[in-house]
Structures are given as C-alpha cells and as structure tokens.
C-alpha cells in the first residue's frame, strides 16, 4: 500500500479549496454591490468584515445568534445524512417554542430546575412530534418533504390557537404570551453580553452528534443508509427503526434549540409566524455538507456576517439585507457540483500522469 501524496485535487483538500474560493467570490460580489449602491464602499465593506470584533457586545451578538442555527443545522444535517429530506424543524421550532413558553410562564422550581424542565419537556415532545413524519415514511413510504411541510403549517396553527386561547397576555397589545418567570430565563455567562449557557450546550451537542455519527454503531447505520439505502437493507439494517430514531433525535435537537433561544433572548413568546430558524438550519446543513463540526463553523460564519452587516447598516445607508447576497452566493457555489470541476480534472490529469 502506497500513501498518496498530498494534492489540492484530493477529496478533502478540494472541498476546502472550493469553500474558501466560494467565500471569496461571495465577498467580492458583495463588494461590487456596495460599490454600486453606497457612497463609501471601502469603509462600509471593512466595517462589515471587522465590525463584530470591535466590541465585546458585538461579538456576543454573533455567539447568541448562532445558537439556534447550530441546533437546527444539526437536526437537519442528521436527517439529510440519513437520506431524509425533512424540513419539519421549522414547525418544531414553533410548537416547541409554545410548549417551552407555557412552562416558562408557570411559577415553580428554582433557577436550575425551571429552565431544565422548560428545555427538556419541549425537547421530548418535539422528538415525539417528529416521529409522525418518521412513522409515515418508515411505514407507508410517505414523502417526508411533503408531510413535514404540511405539519409545519399545522404546528403553526395549533400553536397560535394555544397561545391565543390559553397563554395570551392580557396586558399586551398584540398576540403574545405573558412575561416568562424570572427563574426560567437563562443567565448571561459573559459579562457585557447576552451570551447564555446556550452556546455551551450548542458546542456540546455538536460534539455529541459528531461522536455519535462517526464512532457508534447507530452513526454507522445512519451513514450507510444515507449513502445507499438499498445497500443498508441488503446488509440487514432495519431502516424503519433507524428512520424513527433519527427523527426523534432530530426533533429533540430542535426542541432544545428553540427553548434555549427563547429562554436566552426573549422575555415573552411573540412569534405569530414561523420563525425561519428551522429553514435556515437546512441551509447550514447544506453548506456544512451535513458535517456536525461544519455546522458549527458555518453557523458562526453566517452569524458573524449577519452581525457585521447590521453594524454596517447602522453607520451607512446600506440596508442589512445585503447579507442575503453573501448567503445566497455561498449556498449556490458550495452546493454546485460542477463548480471548479474542470480545474480539478486538469490537475488530476497532470498528477495522474506523473505518478499512477
């Protein structure tokens, strides 16, 4: 067995080169847009890129906004890895949030047990709710994309009805829950910021899922089923129980994600539409190629740019929406299979002829 020499055209290295180039291109396009629309493009651009580093509070903003993205990204990447294109995390974020809010509004326990219950209970229920599309898929081979999108609407409707009927704040003009109990909210852990224990939980979740995926028998079955379900079945793996388990874990992650988000940033539940955090999770998973560590990196990067754009929009005339150009370009280039393929083939050709 001979060791292959390091090559930029190798699998891992190629993906890295491709990603870095995608980022550079996305930033270049953003700069072009700035140059066309704003009076001082260079300094705006620099503000956007370095803004989050200028103040501890700004950097804290980056960390706090990446937490829900990490959880939904993990949940989605786990589903996608198994070959399940389920976008139900969006609905889970809503209904899980409603359940969390209900618990957060009740007075009981102390500052440890109250948030613990307010996170774990919605997580468990969310896991069970995710079993619905999982069961329909495993038992009847119902398309999980369709069922999960329909369930998103159902969860929004049911959640809104619950808030309006049982949890409506009487002292508040629009539809929202009463203020959460003080004991339920998560304390800030970095002075001068609103960063809570949530970021720690997110990192722990990433590590756990990573280990589960690459070191355990469950993870092995998930990977094989995702890569080739016929092969997994032929090998004797049980797709039905696997689909159910993956859906449960993914729903659980979603439940933790939405609870941590609510108990960290919000003082009452006020979502009257789907929050979009679940769908963003699908984007995170795609850009991270369904790798848990990748989800962490991507969520940080996207949050960083988002906060950077917000800082920039405060000091210039450029609207914060400019950041969607960066995100869109990144998603496009990273998920495009043929991007850089010609270059890679030429490079392989040269190397191939040298030492094959």
């Amino acid at each position, binding site marked *: 067995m001979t060791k292959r020499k390091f090559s930029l055209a190798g699998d891992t290295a190629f993906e890295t080169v491709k990603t870095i180039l995608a980022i550079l291109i996305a930033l270049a396009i953003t700069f072009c847009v700035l140059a066309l629309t704003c009076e001082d493009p260079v300094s705006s651009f620099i503000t956007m890129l370095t803004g989050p580093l200028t103040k501890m509070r700004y950097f804290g903003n980056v960390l706090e906004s990446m937490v829900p993205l990490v959880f939904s990204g993990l949940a989605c990447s786990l589903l996608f890895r198994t070959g399940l294109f389920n976008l139900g995390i969006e609905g889970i974020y809503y209904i899980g949030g409603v359940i969390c809010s209900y618990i957060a509004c009740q007075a009981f326990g102390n500052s440890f047990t109250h948030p613990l219950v307010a996170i774990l209970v919605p997580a468990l229920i969310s896991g069970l709710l995710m079993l619905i599309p999982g069961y329909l898929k495993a038992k009847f081979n119902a398309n999980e994309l369709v069922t999960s999108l329909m369930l998103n609407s159902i969860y929004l409707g049911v959640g809104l009805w619950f808030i309006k009927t049982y949890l409506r704040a009487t002292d508040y003009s629009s539809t929202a829950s009463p203020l959460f109990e003080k004991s339920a909210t998560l304390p800030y852990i970095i002075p001068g910021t609103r960063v809570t224990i949530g970021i720690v939980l997110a990192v722990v979740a990433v590590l756990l899922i990573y280990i589960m995926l690459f070191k355990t028998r469950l993870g092995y079955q998930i990977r094989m089923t995702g890569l*080739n379900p016929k092969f997994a079945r032929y090998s004797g793996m049980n797709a039905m129980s696997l689909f159910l388990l993956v859906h449960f874990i993914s729903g659980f992650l979603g439940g933790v994600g939405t609870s941590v988000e609510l108990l960290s940033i919000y003082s009452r539940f006020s979502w009257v539409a789907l929050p979009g955090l679940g769908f963003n999770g699908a984007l995170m998973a795609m850009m991270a190629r369904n790798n848990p560590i990748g989800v962490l990196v991507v969520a940080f990067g996207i949050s960083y740019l988002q906060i950077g754009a917000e800082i920039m929009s405060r000091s210039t005339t450029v609207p914060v929406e400019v950041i969607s150009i960066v995100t869109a370009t990144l998603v496009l280039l990273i998920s495009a299979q043929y991007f850089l393929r010609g270059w890679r083939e030429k490079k392989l050709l040269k190397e191939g002829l040298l030492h094959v």
Partner: protein
Amino acid sequence: MINHTQKPIQTQLELSVKGGIPLEDSILRLENITKVYSNGVVANKDISVDFRKGEIHSIVGENGAGKSTLMKILFGIEQPSAGKLYYRGEERAFHNSLEAIDAGIGMVHQHFMLIPSFTVAQSIVLGMEPRKGKLFLNKKAAVEKTRTIAEKYNFDIDVTKKISELSVGAKQKVEILKTLYRNAEVIILDEPTSVLTPQETEGLFEELEKFRKLGHTILFISHKLGEVKQISDRITIMRNGESCGTFENAEISMEELTARIIGRDLISSYDEKKKPWPEPTHVLSVEGLSLSHKGQAVLSDISLAVKRGEIFGIAGVQGNGQDELIRAIAGLSEHTAGKIVLNGHDISRMTIKKRRETGLAYVPEDRMSDGTAGEASLGDNIISTYFDRPALNGKLFMRGRKINAEARRLIQEYSIKAESPAQKIQSLSGGNIQKVVVAREQNTNPICMLAEQPTHGIDIGSAEFIHLRLIEMRNEGAGLLLVSADLDEVMSLSDRLIVMYDGKIAAYFPSTKELSRSELGYYMLGVKQQTPEEIGGALHD
C-alpha cells in the same frame, strides 16, 4: 458545427461489392488518447489505435482495462482529456453522441436502450422519424423504411411487433438496425454476446460477417476470447488503461492473447481443486416457491436443495426468474407461496438480519446498487454485514483501530488493489469492488452463500480469484447457490445444475461433466423442457 460531407451508405455498398476498398484504408484513428475521470481514475493512458474500413476489430482486456471508456470517447459520450481523434482523415471532436451518430458511428450498448411499449419500427426511427408535413409522424413510411433496411441486411424480424414481446437476441437486432438506419459505417458493439445464448451468438456472428463484406467497420468489445478469435480480423489488447498493441488475428495464438491480457496462464478447469465433503446434508432447501408480481407469475413452483460442500448452479438467460428467486431467499423480496429452510430453520418469514445470523451470505448481482455504498470508504463497506460483531465494538463505540486492522487484513488476503481502508470504494476498479463484496460475505463464515453473477463484468484475474474463493468455501463445507448467465462459469464451477426458463425449472443435471453448451442452450431458450420427474432430482438427490 458539423461540417463535413457524409457519403451515403449506398456508394459504400457499391464500392465494397466491387471489392474497391483497400484493406489498409483507415477510417478511424486515435492518437495518444488519455482520459482522467474527475475522481482521479486514469481510465485511458496514451492510446493510439487505427481502425480500418471493412474489418472486425476486437478490443479485449479485463474489465477496468479501459475498453468501455475508449468506446465512450469514440461515441462522444465522454471527452478525452488529451489526444486526437481522426475520422476519415479529418481531426474531429465529438461533443456528444449525436455528433458521432451524424458522422456515421453507431453503438450498441451492453444494456439495451429500448422502450418496451414501442414497436420495432418506432424504436428504430426514434429521433429521426419520417414525417408528413412538418408536424405529423408518418407511421406507414416508418414501417416501410425499417422493413427495407431489415430486408437489405437479411434480418428476420417483424417490425410491427412490440419490443416487450421480443427475445433478447431480437432486441439486439433492433439495436443494430437502429445504427444502420442512421447510416452507421462504424458500429461499436459493447459485450454483445453477454446476454445471448450460444445459438443467438452464432446468428450475430453471421450478421457481423455480412456487415464486414458490405464495408462496415465493426468494433467488437468482449472479454470472451474464444469468440474474439473466431470473429476478428485484428485484435487490440488493453491492460490497465493502456494499449498493449494491435495484432492480426492470424498471428496471435489464444495462449499469447491470454498471457498479454492478464500476464499469466489461467486454470481452465477447477475439477482438481474440488474436494468432497463427508456429510452432504441439505443446507438450504426451497420447496414450492412461487412469486407473482402484479398478477403475473414470476416464479412458479421452484423446488431445489443445496447440500453442504457443493456448488449448485442456476443457468439461464438473464431475466428468467433467477434474480427474483435469489432475492426471495435473501429476504429482499417477499414470495407468494412456498417454504425456504436454511440449516433446519424455516427462514421464509425472517428478517434479512435474522437470515444472515442463521448462516446466510449473499453476493448480489449489482455490486454498486446493492453490494456497496460507493461514497463510503472501503473500511465501512467491508464490515456492513457484521458491523455489530463484538470484536469490532466496545460498549458504546465502534473500535476504529480494530476495524481498520480487519479491513487491512482482508485487503491483503484478497489482494485488493487499494491505497488504504479510508479510500472511497467507488474509486476502485470493478474487480476490486467485487473482491471487497466477496471478502465481506466470506468473512461471516456462512454455511450457505448465494452468489449471483459473482464475476459479471470484472477482469479475468479477479474472476479466477473469486472462483477459487467460492471453491474454497465449498471445500470447507458450505453450500453455494450460484446464478450465472456465463455458461463457462456455471459449468466449470457447479456440481449440480438447473436451467431456469420463464420462472420455472426447465432442466436439472445431476452432473456437469458430460454436459454440452448447445444442450444447455436448448433449455435456456425454452426449446426443450424436462419432465417433472427429471426436475424433481433438484430437490430429492
């Protein structure tokens, strides 16, 4: 844009009838063709070869030697990474197969590209239909045109029949007629005999002779050397993506040809390798197995029993129920009636995992869709059927080091050409992938193994290696059920043999010693059928 003048095929014919084509006349020439796939596989390396007008030119080599890639380049499906292609003396680049077809190159693929619900005439004119005005198809003209062409080349085929009603041999005729309808001068045939019975093969060869006389150039891709020697004018040998030279058929012996393809001699018979097993009890018995799909009987009343220490062969043209039978035994599809007993346990309703735990192993026909996960590593693929084995696992975690060591051991033992267990399995050659599958299945120490087309489309060296492995399992007391469309394989390996035709057992032979290929061919084609008493031996012997 295509800018060349295409000679109508008629002038060609006149010329050839008068004997006007000099043999040395080159029609298609490749110069230093190199192809590297994006996954880094170098499929063709610096290949130069010259094809002449009016010759049958065989391209032989192990699978994975790069024959198919070279043909795809000729036919415009793949683009060469480097090198030049000359067609009638002009440098050309075919960007897609339409350009190649326009220029006069036709290809008959190994797997037919036909629409079952179309008639023969519709299939042949597809994409170049005669029209009434601009909008409407002229069905009558289509039928007439195809009939004329079929008559001109002496093809005995009813052009109004539906494709789904045709035999495999007839489907192949349709594919060939398709290329002729498009005025192909060069016809590429990719493993054309792999699906044919011996009788059908003879028929094909007669037709090819006819085309040669009419001035067509035939590129014949095959790994069956007997056929190559029989039909070719010249032979180009490929190995590891490189050309090992082009030879006049008359000037190269069978032995030399074999030696150049694989670099050494082959064992022609496995008889001396086989050892008897002391207690040949039944290890797998199938009783009255029937299966219907959408109301159509796919399998009817199949009964057979495999003993310990034997290879039980199933011969037959592909698609006569062999695949369904094996999948039913393996647990991948459900059967309608009947009983499957493995080592004394009724496994008919067991899950796949339970069947495997009872001692069943399975080498599936399609190694890429069932046998492996292409994107996964070699290491992941080689443990898939026993990944939960205690030796490879701790309480919570899988033990990566143990798994790697096991993979390395198997790589060595089965001489799999791979860089490391971390390599993606799809970057290996077909033969090496198949070795991984066989290594994995043998590694579970099964008492019964289903081997379905175990050497289909792989190189001779790997095929022989796998054959010896199967015999080794047999000698150690396992019972093997072998399905193969390759007569040489099924006849040289099997101890007992059945032929399947149309979902039924057509014949049973208690020994393969005095069996002739043509005898088998009659049963495979459904010309002959044994009595139920004779067939009963498959279960009761």
